[in-house]
């Protein structure tokens, strides 16, 4: 591939600056002792202290994390089962139908998911709060896990399964010692994506959360609607830090599995 001349470089630089400017702007003013996001007065950590001394906010952060972890775990389990079910389906058109049904929730706008789940929970009688939010998060994460796991299953050679069966493995052995290890990278990727989808979700949660329960996104929305509070800035500084750590962790895990996969191939 050719080298970039200076004009494209400038273009890319501008795009990067625009993408990152709002984030660094938020973090910069989180250290402002003045009240707003203009006129930097002097450096302070008081907004970070405010975050850590606000027990209500900390409980909301905890709720968000619990919902994210639980929903990622459960949706990964259901998603892996779903991917296996789709993989073993013999009928091609039935498989295609199940796959398109699977994808409906991925392309559906959040508002539709939120509104329809709200009706559903009211009809069934699920109380709005922790349970309804958790169930919704599991529901919209399942198809993503399926999408991440299925390609791994499809690239697996069927002779692996046949060989294991010929060598006397039971069906359980085939699953736990051949299939699952092979699709592990897909499972991890699905889990990680489910986690980020849950942490990021605002619209669906906004619909199905009742009065007493709140997640971080919903809380930020209601704080932002009342105007500028530098506590949100401090919060975003922390979130940015955690996101970077997660991304780096994910990057390392993915690269590691790639390296080990290469080693296996040798």
């Amino acid at each position, binding site marked *: 591939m*050719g*080298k*970039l001349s200076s004009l*494209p470089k400038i*273009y*890319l630089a501008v*795009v*990067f600056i625009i*993408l*990152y400017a*709002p*984030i660094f*702007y*938020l973090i910069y*003013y989180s250290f402002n002792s003045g009240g*707003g*996001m*203009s*006129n930097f007065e002097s450096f302070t950590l008081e907004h970070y202290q405010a975050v850590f001394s606000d027990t209500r906010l900390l409980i909301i952060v905890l709720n968000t994390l619990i919902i994210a972890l639980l929903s990622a775990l459960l949706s990964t*389990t259901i998603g892996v*089962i*779903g991917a296996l*079910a789709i993989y*073993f389906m013999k009928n091609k058109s039935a498989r295609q139908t*199940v796959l398109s*049904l*699977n994808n*409906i*929730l991925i*392309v*559906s*706008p959040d*508002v*539709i*998911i939120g*509104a*329809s*789940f709200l*009706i*559903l929970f009211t009809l069934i009688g699920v109380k709005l709060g922790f349970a309804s939010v958790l169930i919704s998060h599991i*529901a919209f994460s399942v198809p993503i896990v399926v999408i991440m796991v299925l390609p791994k299953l499809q690239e697996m050679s069927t002779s692996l399964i046949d060989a294991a069966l010929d060598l006397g493995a039971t069906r359980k052995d085939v699953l736990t010692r051949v299939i699952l290890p092979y699709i592990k990278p897909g499972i991890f990727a699905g889990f990680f994506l489910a986690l980020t989808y849950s*942490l*990021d979700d*605002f*619209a669906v949660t*906004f*619909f199905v959360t009742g009065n007493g329960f709140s997640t*971080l*996104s919903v809380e*930020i*929305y209601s704080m*932002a*609607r009342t105007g500028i509070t530098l506590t949100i800035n401090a919060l*975003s500084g922390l*979130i*940015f830090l955690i*996101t*970077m750590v*997660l*991304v780096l962790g994910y990057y390392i895990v993915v690269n590691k599995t790639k390296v080990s996969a290469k080693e296996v191939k040798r």
Partner: protein
Amino acid sequence: MKNNPLRFVYAVPYAVWMLLFVLAPIVVIVYYSFFDLSGQLTLGNYRNFFTSIYFKLTMSSFWYAFLITFFSLLISYPTAYFLTKTKHKQLWLLLIIIPSWINLLLKTYAFIGLMGLYGPINAFLETIGIGSQQILFTDFSFVFVSVYIFIPFMILPIFNSLDKINPALLDASKDLGANAWVTFKRVVWPLTIDGVKSGIQVVFIPALSLFMITRLIAGNKVITLGTAIEQQFLVTQNWGMGSTIAVFLIIFMFLIMVLTSRKEKGASANGKVK
């Protein structure tokens, strides 16, 4: 392994999920769209939808979604193109994706400060002599922030399709006497049209249904289908009307998916050329 009736037992959780959270929600939305506020069976919601207010709302929602998609594409395509030409392109791509992992609300919130009357953008306009403007709570700010939010999602599929192009094709085109523009028009663009289509799909449908950005950035200047649904469900508590708008949003969604769906045959034919 075959013909074992127990074989399907393990699929139960997934089947239950699909029944409860994919099929049932669509059914209840359609069902509720036939009821009015007092619980009477009616077609009134549909009649309402075709009155001028909702027609205008739908049109403006589509117009904004179109603008957002258009500008996202306009910015993303060159970005993706140049990215494929950088060294360490995967690392640069990762850097493009990272902002999309920061909570959407936080990014939107940042613009409340950036675009505010005393914010840096107005300070800049002041120094170059234009003077401060009301930027926040206009349709410009709405489109701008939405484009900002959607750019990474547009870049990703386009980058992937650009990255798959066999460089030999470009060399061949050059050797056969095509200039850069002809090569782009006849070789690069047709090979990346699928990426562009999936980019349009992931931007246009959410753009129709955004509601937090309209509320926070556009004030009440812009009403999208999403805002209308949220309004009906959570403010007016008129679930029937909200469901009716949702039914139409679902129909639009399917139409857009059909329009932007990839031609499987054409794509596989291209693949087989290798």
